[in-house]
């Protein structure tokens, strides 16, 4: 543990926060410097400030609105479907121990499979539209929600289930008043992971399959040597990923603290 600190009266959490901010700002400034002084060649990378300006311009000019909407709707759909399917399947599997044991190796290996190999299959099945992209997002994100659901349901303390009988609750009441609230932190983690995976799956799919959206925008800009646009879009994707996941993480931490798990 670090003894003391430079700023007396500043809590450790605050110091960590400020240090992190300083590191991020420092890295961005360093990148800016390296690009401006051409240590990093302009053909390789443009300064972060130029990226930001270009992004602002693209948004203001409405040039990427369609792409943003397309990606957002794909991610949103994939997220919603995988959360619902993941929860339902997870609850089902958790309740059937034999099925669970049989499926376990499958789930454990799920993320070892390079899913992009199925892209052409999905295109052939669904056509050259948004469905293959949503499908990839769902395939990526559902197991994460399943695993989190199973973990949450596993961890409902047995004594609380006994309590449900003491209070003479019906099965439905038990699920609503005891099982779900007890499993809530794990379910929320599943939500957070599902979003991250749906986002990654959709963007990766757009990049590889050329169907529109931000991922495709990046690939197209790269191939057309439009560096500014390419980096602007990358910045956007970066900011959205960090922003949404960061927000969900903070919320998750707050819930955990209330339960004494922090």
């Amino acid at each position, binding site marked *: 543990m670090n003894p003391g600190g430079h700023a007396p009266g500043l809590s450790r959490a605050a110091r960590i926060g400020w240090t992190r901010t300083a590191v991020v700002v420092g890295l961005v400034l360093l990148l800016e410097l390296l690009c401006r002084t051409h240590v990093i060649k302009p053909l390789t990378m443009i300064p972060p400030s130029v990226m930001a300006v270009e992004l602002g311009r693209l948004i203001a000019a409405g040039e990427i609105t369609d792409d943003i909407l397309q990606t957002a709707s794909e991610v949103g759909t994939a997220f919603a479907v995988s959360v619902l399917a993941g929860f339902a399947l997870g609850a089902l599997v958790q309740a059937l121990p034999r099925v669970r044991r049989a499926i376990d190796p499958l789930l454990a290996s799920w993320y070892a499979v390079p899913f992009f190999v199925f892209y052409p299959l999905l295109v052939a099945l669904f056509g050259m539209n948004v469905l293959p992209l949503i499908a990839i997002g769902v395939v990526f994100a559902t197991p994460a929600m399943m695993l989190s659901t199973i973990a949450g349901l596993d961890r409902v303390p047995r*004594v609380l289930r006994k*309590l449900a009988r*003491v209070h*003479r*609750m019906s099965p439905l009441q038990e699920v609503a008043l005891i099982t779900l*609230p*007890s499993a809530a932190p794990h379910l929320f983690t599943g939500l957070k992971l599902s979003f991250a995976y749906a986002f990654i799956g959709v963007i990766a799919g757009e990049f590889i399959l050329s169907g529109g959206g931000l991922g495709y925008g990046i690939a197209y800009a790269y191939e057309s040597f439009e560096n500014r646009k390419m980096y602007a879009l990358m910045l956007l994707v970066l900011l959205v990923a960090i922003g949404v996941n960061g927000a969900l993480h903070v919320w998750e931490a707050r819930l955990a603290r*209330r339960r004494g798990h922090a």
Partner: protein
Amino acid sequence: MSSNAEADSLAHATLRAVTRTYPGARPVHALGPIDVDIARGEFFSVVGPSGCGKSTLLDVLAGLSAPTTGHVTFESKPVAGQVPDGVGVVFQEDASFPWLTVHDNVAFGLRRAGMEAAETARRVDYAIGFMGLRDFAHAYPAQLSGGMRQRVCIARTLVLQPRLILLDEPFGALDQQTRLLMGDELLRLWRETGASVLLITHALDEAAMLSDRVGVMSARPGVFIDLVTTGWARERDSRIVSDPGFGVVTARLWSSLRAESMKAIGREA
């Protein structure tokens, strides 16, 4: 048989020829046969070696578990399949809901029963005050110590105004000093509510100081090998340890229990 029927109607709860065998490839005869009455307003403790079936006894009496043979009654009505109205249970593990504040935890049963808000508020306020939780009414269980969380569970049971309170080693996870103080609170609760109390405990001193009667169980399958009447006055607290009678009771409990405890360990070793 008629004298039994009379006895049944006086007793608050009865167990007659109750056994409990857990089914399976090798069935486990966990409990019984048990024959015991709990009188109205009595404080009855059960002690015994580990694995003797004390918790099973509580489960059967509460209706959480069905006896394999025999029958159970509460207020002259048979107990089967579900927990009867008027019976409250406090478990050894922390059963407070981590997602509710202390206040909402205590109000839980009342709100579910559809009690109207003013009466709920009144009862919850009383129970929280009674259990010394007023300063923590809006805290979450995670912010409280183990003893306080157990008080939340007791308060939650208290508001439902149970006529029979079953406690399964409620203070098992607490240190000795806290246990003694919680014992005093339990006695206060008992006197205030006029309920009958069944306390399962492995601590002989606790059973000796709190109870009107103590049942000593044998090693598995548990049957009662001794029933000790303490004869304490109703107005008592933990300072009863200085009464010479306390030593006598504890000594008698241990002399009955020692051989059984050794059997239980010998079986496990």
